[in-house]
């Protein structure tokens, strides 16, 4: 564990326990995957729309 991550873990424990830290992290990963999904669909649709016909 690096010195930089110690405050983060402590903060999570203070905010309601390590479990809430995990919950927050998991939700953030879910959000990241969702953004990736939306971006992938939009970019691919844009590519399909722009292709030469």
């Amino acid at each position: 564990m690096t010195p930089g991550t110690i405050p983060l873990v402590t903060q999570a424990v203070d905010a309601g326990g390590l479990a809430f830290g995990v919950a927050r992290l998991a939700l953030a990963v879910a959000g990241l995957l969702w953004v990736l999904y939306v971006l992938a669909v939009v970019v691919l649709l844009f590519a399909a729309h722009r292709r030469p016909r």
Partner: protein
Amino acid sequence: MTTVLIVCAVSAVLMVFTYTLGMYLESAGSTEHPTGGGDGFTVVFVVPCLNEERVIAATLRHLPDGPVLVVDDGSDDGTADAVRRLADPRVRLLRREPPDARQGKGHALNHAMRHLLESRPAFRRSADRVLVCLMDADGRLDAGSLDKVLPYFADPRVGAVQMGVRIGNRTQSLLTRMQDMEFVVYTRVFQRTRSRIGSAGLGGNGQVMRLSALLDLGDAPWSRSLTEDLDLGVRMVLSGWRTACVPDATVHQQGLVGLRALVRQRSRWFQGHLQALRLVPPVVGRASGRVAVDLLNVLLSPLLIFVGSFMTLSLVASLVGVTFSSVAREQLFQPVPIVSWYVLTFGAAFLLGPLYARAGGDMGWVRGLGYGHLFIVYNLVWLVAAWRGLWRAARGRRAWLKTERLADPSPGPA
């Protein structure tokens, strides 16, 4: 940054719910039935088999009139004997032996296709009027189902039609009931709307295809994918054909009674879905408009299952946190947080439960609502299956044991 991503995650739930609501409302509109007739078509039934001695004889007895091609893909049980004992002149048994056998359902179907074209050369010349109806070895067509499907082929643009799937043993257990609800929801909400776009998914059982549409995909139209039916449907649409779904035409199949077998089956489907990602570039290169949106959404949807799995992990971790923190209990056990969580988690049950009750016609809306809630929980199966499928794909494992059939309780007319 973390807070922004958390907001994105919550927006994901809302957007997926909005998407489901949109599909629900779109599918609730009046159904357009084809105006043309369904006369003049030759329907050939193709039934791929691998160790199906428990069900194959009853399935063949229940098929409507028409030539039947049974492809025995290297069974080592009594499947071939069961077919021979029927002595039905309509039925042709095509046996595949090792090393050609057991290379996947797609291989077996391509073999059937080659046989069909060689044994009936006239079919190639009249391919627009020849339909291939793919049936699973445990499939049962409802009376009149085929008659409801045939008029769709009066439209020369239609390449394939998928019937609605129901679970025959849905009253056997809660698990089979949930599988039935899954197919009904998929057919009534998503397939119906996709059908209007012209890109309904094909599911392998109760799947009727125009021979000319198959020939457009080459002499070996089925791929080696674990979900060769998904591949076939997408490639057919990319070739310019429309695919439709007819919810009123029903094919019944066996539901799985064990949770372990269900997870294994869904893992196989999920891994097949991952294999289908290779179709994304052709979709970008050849599809457009609503078809492109639909196909890309379907092909990229495995990512959404992982979104769901991390959300579920978050929920479980939160419950653990609440258990050990009295402060959190006081803050979260309030009406607003509880109602918010309930709506975000079970909101879809209020759409899908009553819909299932209406479609089934054998229960009231209150019971349907109860099943709707259980259905949300049931979908956790997909989360487990997705990780298992990903793990197998990462390790390069693609061989799967076949799902075991139950003994058929209704052997049908002799």
